[in-house]
């Protein structure tokens, strides 16, 4: 029991710290790729602390509730992951959070927010099947949906599930809101629907969404690290390389539209997953 409480507490403290740090590193790396200096590494924390202390302006109560719900769902998902729970349960909790975010955006009247919410739903639609397929792949290999079992698995999963890992990379690009998939919202407001999904979240509620996003990022990166769970070095290296690739992709592509995204994510992701699953089965 004490152990569990300790794990929960440690996760709840470490995840946002790590998430913020990754986001800060991301911004510096992006700036370097663009020949800029970029912000200090702790910039995301400054942003969030500032937002928490801004005047709370809420469009409606529903949106406030959704911001809390999104943050809680993301937190629960990460905590469940840390406890080595069922992978499907974790993914489901996280998806619930994502839906709350969309519902909050839908509850406003701003057209940008509505279009953003609409697109976010389509994005969820395009990556959720892939996430489930990843879970299925892990199950076929390890014989269990339990994260704890996956962690204890003897050989690196990446060697058996390379294509599924690529599909997971696709999901990561969508979830990190990187080009070419930064459709519903993006880090900088330079898009046709400005901040889209996040248009009407402001002040402290935007901060909650941001912290929730950090939890989401941690969850996905942790999922990535499962593919090399045998050694700490392997884990960190794999995550670092994956994230670096995401940052580079962000900087070498233009933003696409949602029709293209839907087609591409499904065609590419499903092909990769199915090829991998068949390959597993045949051997």
């Amino acid at each position, binding site marked *: 029991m004490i152990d569990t409480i300790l794990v929960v507490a440690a996760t709840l403290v470490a995840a946002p710290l790590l998430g913020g740090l990754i986001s800060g590193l991301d911004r510096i790396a992006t700036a370097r790729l663009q020949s800029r200096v970029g912000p200090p590494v702790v910039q995301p924390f400054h942003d969030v602390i500032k937002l928490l202390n801004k005047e709370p302006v809420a469009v409606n109560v529903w949106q406030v509730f959704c911001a809390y719900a999104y943050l809680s769902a993301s937190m629960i998902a990460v905590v469940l992951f840390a406890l080595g729970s069922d992978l499907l349960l974790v993914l489901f909790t996280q998806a619930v959070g994502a839906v709350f975010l969309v519902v909050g955006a839908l509850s406003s009247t701003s057209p940008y927010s509505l279009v953003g919410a*609409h697109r976010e739903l389509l994005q969820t639609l395009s990556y959720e099947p892939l996430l489930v397929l990843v879970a299925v792949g892990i199950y076929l290999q390890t014989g269990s949906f339990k994260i704890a079992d996956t962690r204890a698995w003897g050989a690196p999963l990446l060697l058996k599930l390379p294509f599924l890992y690529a599909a997971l990379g696709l999901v990561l690009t969508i979830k990190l809101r990187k080009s070419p998939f930064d459709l519903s919202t993006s880090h900088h407001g330079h898009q*046709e629907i*400005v901040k889209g999904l996040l248009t009407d979240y402001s002040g402290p509620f935007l901060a909650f969404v941001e912290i929730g996003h950090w939890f989401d990022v941690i969850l996905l990166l942790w999922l990535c690290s499962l593919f090399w769970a045998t050694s700490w070095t392997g884990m960190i290296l794999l995550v670092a390389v994956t994230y670096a690739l995401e940052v580079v992709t962000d900087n070498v592509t233009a933003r696409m539209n949602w029709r293209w995204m839907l087609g591409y994510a499904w065609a590419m992701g499903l092909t990769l997953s199915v090829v991998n699953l068949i390959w597993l089965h045949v051997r």
Partner: protein
Amino acid sequence: MPVSTIPFGPQHPVLPEPIHLKLTVEDEVIKEVVPALGYVHRGLEKLAGTRDFHQMVQIVERVCGICSMMHAMCYCECVEAMMGIETPPRARYLRLIWSELNRLHSHLLWLGLFADSFGFESLFMQFWKIREKVMDLQEATAGNRVIVSVNVIGGLRRDLSPEQQQTILNILDRVEDEMRLLEKPLLGDYTVMKRTKGKGIVSAARALELGCVGPTLRGSGVAQDMRQLGYEAYGDLAFEPRVEKDGDCYSRLKVRYREVFQSIDLIRQAMEKIPAGEIAAVVKGRPEGEGLARVEQPRGEVFYYVKADGKKYLERIRIRTPTFANVPVLLAMLPGMCLSDVPVIVLSIDPCISCTER
């Protein structure tokens, strides 16, 4: 998703300028567009009643901060023609050099903003990084980064020393090298092509009918460039308009990208041929009668009409800027396109709202 109305602007990060488009959208496909203007209207033409015709040079420079030099040049040409002033040959070459520098910075600015409109942030940063070199040149030679205030009626206020000419040539070499490196990312990238090819198509006939000008017209395959008129020193230099056939955003992008090299080439030619001598003619008397002048700006043809009756103040000054002529064609391009294509198509005409409304 049912039919809904999306207001685009007047405050929008993709379009720094306040134009307001009321988009009627069904399932993210544009059905109808109604523009609303007037957010930048200052009534600048009316100032001709309170500023004399020399001071109007500084006023028309501020019609648009991006092509300031060309506005002033066109106005000066117009008044000079009315007063029968012959500008010295050196001034004609210097005006060409500064106006091509202006075009260079404007096109680089546009290439960056255009890349930003389809979310290619690193490309945007790259073009603006190159652009700073041109801005430095403008600042070092003309004294201001943006408003290149060198024109007076009769010629110029500033001269280029031989060292400055050499600096310009050296820096332009570097600009050219860096621009060559960006050809592939800009014109050969899959995602860029996907976002620009086949978007906002306008045929040559339709473009002419809607009165469109500049790179927008040349992107539709019509070889019309006001520089062919041979104003200032353009008549002495080798010059061919850059034309692309397809009439979509991609070909407009290509036209502007190729015009960057054309400007560099024109500056080099001018530097070789530039004669020594005076830079300004003596201005006596006051303008009388009517005058017209046209100049090719980065965005297309600008049209000046001046009417004077021998007084210190001009009777009427009329400015028709290139974006003003390109708005009708923009309205024809948008319906049927996706919401995500709106910034791309709007920027593909290189809108300058402050020009449009004055």
